[in-house]
């Protein structure tokens, strides 16, 4: 592995070079809410921020937009509507300073959206291929982060083309893919000792993260044993089914498909929109039968899906990267770490970790 070095002083030139081929996006401080980080285009004369916790929304919507046109219709003849495949957006983009947890989130979703020939989501794949991921390792994880427990980490590399580690004045650049190597090719090689400094920073970041839960027993317990835990009633009492956790989650990928047809119009479109498993209508049949008609069933679905159903289906991979957004933004303070601890507790009625 050939490490490169990028001084923060020469960053503007690096971004300018990237801008010739790509639209460069980076986390920026929201002008109205100072602590809120949002993904925005990095203008030519702008320097990206290196001191931030993480963006409020994960960058999944660059690849899986909240609302996306899948196809258009046009009336031809009497009433017949003819399908017109939608023209794909062609923007080639770089996500600069993407956190490893968010990159792992996209990498995880590759597995969901492009499983095989039948499940080959062209909308996802097209945008994914056009998006270069330049990561910024997390040196100061915040208290709500738990990426290590979620099989990720503050310096994780999955889903990235390049991982950068902030060494202070310089950034250590680690190209991870052929595309990453090509982008970093013009940068000077790192000097001896710099990769070692990055390794120490990584160790400090990992050590700073207090282990908050274990999934050992969740893996061993049968699906039905976990499903029948009385604990779900307790979580359900608090949850208001608002869906905030699912919208901010880098790995939640449920969606709805709807046709939009303006009144008296002769053209329409089919769109897919983010949806969430805790919405009461999510599983409602046309007949009125609802397999998850009760709130407790819907609350259970989210946690079971992330930490039991997905690992069973996808070779042990959990459907969570430990970014902590759901912990920070839940309006009723449900902490997924407590929930997983309760699923893990030897006593099925246990109420989670002690604080």
């Amino acid at each position, binding site marked *: 592995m050939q490490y490169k070095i990028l001084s923060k002083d020469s960053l503007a030139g690096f971004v300018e070079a990237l801008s010739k081929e790509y639209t460069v996006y980076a986390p920026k401080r929201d002008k109205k809410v100072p602590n809120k980080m949002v993904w925005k285009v990095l203008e030519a004369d702008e320097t990206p921020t290196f001191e931030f916790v993480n963006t409020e929304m994960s960058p999944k919507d660059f690849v899986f937009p909240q609302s996306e046109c899948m196809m258009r219709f046009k009336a031809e003849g009497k009433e017949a509507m003819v399908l017109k495949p939608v023209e794909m957006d062609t923007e080639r983009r770089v996500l600069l300073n993407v956190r490893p947890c968010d990159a792992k989130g996209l990498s995880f979703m590759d597995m969901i*959206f492009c499983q095989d020939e039948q499940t*080959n*989501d062209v909308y996802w794949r097209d945008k994914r291929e056009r998006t270069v991921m330049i990561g910024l390792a997390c040196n100061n994880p915040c208290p709500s982060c738990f990426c290590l427990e979620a099989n990720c980490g503050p310096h994780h590399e999955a889903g990235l083309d390049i991982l950068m580690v902030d060494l202070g004045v310089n950034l250590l650049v680690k190209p991870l893919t052929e595309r990453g190597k090509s982008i970093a090719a013009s940068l000077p090689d790192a000097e001896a000792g710099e990769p070692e400094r990055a390794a120490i920073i990584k160790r400090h970041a990992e050590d700073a993260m207090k282990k908050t839960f274990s999934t050992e027993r969740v893996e061993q317990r049968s699906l039905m044993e976990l499903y029948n835990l009385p604990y779900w009633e307790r979580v359900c009492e608090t949850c208001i089914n608002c869906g905030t956790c699912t919208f901010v989650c880098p790995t939640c*990928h449920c969606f709805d*498909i709807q*046709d939009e047809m303006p009144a008296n119009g002769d053209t329409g479109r089919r769109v897919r929109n983010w949806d969430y498993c805790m919405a009461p209508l999510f599983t*409602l*049949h046309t007949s009125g039968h609802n397999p998850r008609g009760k709130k407790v069933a819907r609350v259970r679905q989210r946690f079971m899906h992330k930490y039991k159903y997905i690992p069973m289906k996808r070779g042990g991979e959990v459907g969570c990267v430990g970014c902590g957004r759901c912990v920070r933004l839940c309006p009723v303070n449900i902490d997924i770490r407590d929930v997983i601890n309760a699923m893990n507790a030897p006593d099925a009625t246990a109420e989670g970790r002690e604080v």
Partner: protein
Amino acid sequence: MLNPYLPYPVRISDVRVETEDKTLRTFEFEFLHEKDAKAFAYHPGQFAELSIPGVGESPIGIASSPTEGNKLLFTVFRAGSVTSKLHGMKVGDVMGVRGPMGNWYPLDQNEGKNLVIIAGGYAVTTLRSTMVWLQDPKNRSRFGEIDFIYGARTPGMLLYRDEMEAWQNKGGVRCHVTVDREFPDWNGLTGFVPAVVERLAPKPDNAIALVCGPPVMIKFTQPVLDKCGWKSDQIFLSLENRMKCGIGICGRCNVGHQYVCKDGPVFSKAELDELPVEY
């Protein structure tokens, strides 16, 4: 690049009203492009998304058999916006079909066995596909005796009555058709499907059962089969859940870790015993 969300354009070539209350109609489609017909290679038990641009999509079981040539049939109950719009469409109208989707009844893996096929209400559609497939001489010789047990609320709500008489007249097929209670013009069986199954007490020796019906029928048929000595790995049930993508992504049809649209709709009872009853 294949886009699994783009439906194949089809033209309605025939419409038949199936039931006295006109809530069920069978639509025959022909593909606008020959290459699409070839790409749509399916098995009995699979389903497809019927797609009406501007209205939406609805997952419907395929009622025809691949042994019927290019005939593509769907028997559709008028329920929501898509199916209501479809019921208003006429021969010659163009719409879309996306699929085929999901798995199918494991017939190839059970050659030489007797079959007990149990259907309730309009869930009989995919079992029509199976029955027609079994009538094909190439397939018929590969299986033993066939008991076809089918129930509807009233005689007027029975689907495919003429066809069933033809099946019955062929060797080795016994059709047991029932309606919920006695009717003046009905000389056949009466009573709910689980009760008829109990009376017939089909033998589980060297046999498999294929069950498709409303949740309540499935719920009460399972204990009857248990009582008759059937094991969980001999019973195959077809589930329905709300679906959108149909290819195992959107998460709407999850039952435990399984996706009804991709891992199902057909599951063995042994598989369902390990899953929450969220269907």
